[in-house]
């Protein structure tokens, strides 16, 4: 229990960000028309690609001889990039179609 409270105490700013972000996330999309659900889901999908930052940190601090870390980190960066780039490009393609005829 103490460990848990200590963890919360040490990360209290992060906890605040967490709680506030939950509300922001809900607030921000609550008025979306259903026509935009798919692009929105796709855009959100690209945003969680932010996990790539963790992959970069892993990769960037892997020691030269530590092959498992290097290889897993390398793979993680590739996958994270796929998520980010693929996600944003697909979303843009969907939205491009909404714009054309207006």
């Amino acid at each position, binding site marked *: 229990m103490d460990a848990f409270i200590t963890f919360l105490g040490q990360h209290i700013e992060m906890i605040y960000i967490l709680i506030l972000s939950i509300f922001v996330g809900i607030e921000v999309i609550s*008025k979306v028309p259903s026509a*935009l659900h798919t692009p929105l889901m796709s855009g*959100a999908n690209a945003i969680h*690609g*932010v996990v790539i930052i963790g992959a970069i940190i892993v990769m960037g601090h892997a020691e030269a001889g530590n092959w498992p870390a290097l290889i897993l980190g390398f793979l993680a960066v590739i996958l994270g*990039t796929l998520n980010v780039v693929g996600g944003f490009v697909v979303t843009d393609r969907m939205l491009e179609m909404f714009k054309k005829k207006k």
Partner: protein
Amino acid sequence: MIQQYWLYLIYLLGSVFFIVGLKMLSGPKTARNGNFLAAAGMTLAILGTIFMHTNEDGEPIGNFGWIFGAIAIGTVLGWVSAKKVKMTAMPQMVSLFNGMGGACAALISLVEFGHLHDDASSITVLTIIAGLVIGSISFSGSIIAYAKLQEIMKKTFKLPAQNILTIILLLAIMGLSVYLAFGDSSTALLYTVFALSLAYGVLFVLPIGGADMPVVISLLNSFTGVAAAFGGFLYDNQVMLTGGILVGSAGTLLTVLMCNAMNRSLTNVIFGSFGGGGAAAGEASSFAGGSVKSSTPSDVAILMNYAQKVIVVPGYGLAVAQAQHVIHELESILEKRGVEVKYAIHPVAGRMPGHMNVLLAESNVAYDKLVEMEEINDQFATTDVVFVVGANDVVNPAARSNPASPIYGMPILDADKAKTVVVSKRSMAAGYAGIDNELFYYPNCLMLFGDAKASISKLVAELKEMD
């Protein structure tokens, strides 16, 4: 130190870009710029991390060759596959990219577990394992969702005692995770948890039918967000936390909105009543008795030519047949002859909410011609011809009238209230819910069998001759 503060500011800017970008994505006019803004925020955060990040020991990021190599490979693969994918295959593509993000989170946890110091707190270990478990479930689940939508995997499997099995599996994963964190932190055990989580993701999605796939993808999308947020905790990284949680909460809300549109609860989708309810529906549909009336393109052309008002109900079949361009052509011809044409968009038509809007926008159908269910339902009674193209369950009157039907209670488009309903369909096969549709046997319903694109093309040709 000052460099680190700069990085904090960059992360702050990135987070703001994410929030504003997401906000802009929810309006049709601002959506595209919103996507650019979010992408810009991401680029900032990534570049900032590469050039300015230092770990607790003050070491900067190294291995630039590896990092840029991986980013180059990922960019080319991601860009090309996103550009080449057909609009009809968009849902599974999103699922696939989501899976990549989940796998990324899982891999990070695998590596970080090996880096743990002996004095690491149990909560830190738990954070790492949570990222691993959620990321892995998201990965394997998304791949199964992809395979199902891509029709690599056609059947819906349900193991005996599926629900009990998955619950046991979930409990095992949680138990082992806690043991890893507070007891023995062995690598072998970690890989066991990894394998069990992958298995759970597979079992989680396997029994869920294709009609519910959008809900699943949206749910897995928010899972990956949460996995990214755990990464944020692990590295004390604010932008990972905000980005991840934003998607986690927005994704969960989106999932609930989709469930509401189908009038089903999330637990109902996950633990599934369709599998069990299907048998009952089979019996309930033996009412059929009557026969369907088959029609020809020329008859339908006459009907439409002299109609005042036509409503098109598009469904997944329209996407499969790639009929979005011919349907727009049909609409233009009819409009020129003074027929009012609208499209009725059911919230879950196609395989993702908004799927039909994206598809029809591709063929330049005006945005204001696409009318949502609540707005158009009152208009069916005054409509001469409803043209159902490749849709089925969303116009099934059983949802209103037959409590035994598995889709009972789902809001539907009241197409049956129109003077005439024309249904373009390849065969009498059931829709995605796997149930019969009594609408087809109604006296005011005509069936136009054949590929949607071919049928509509013939219809267009007939109409042109009539001029």
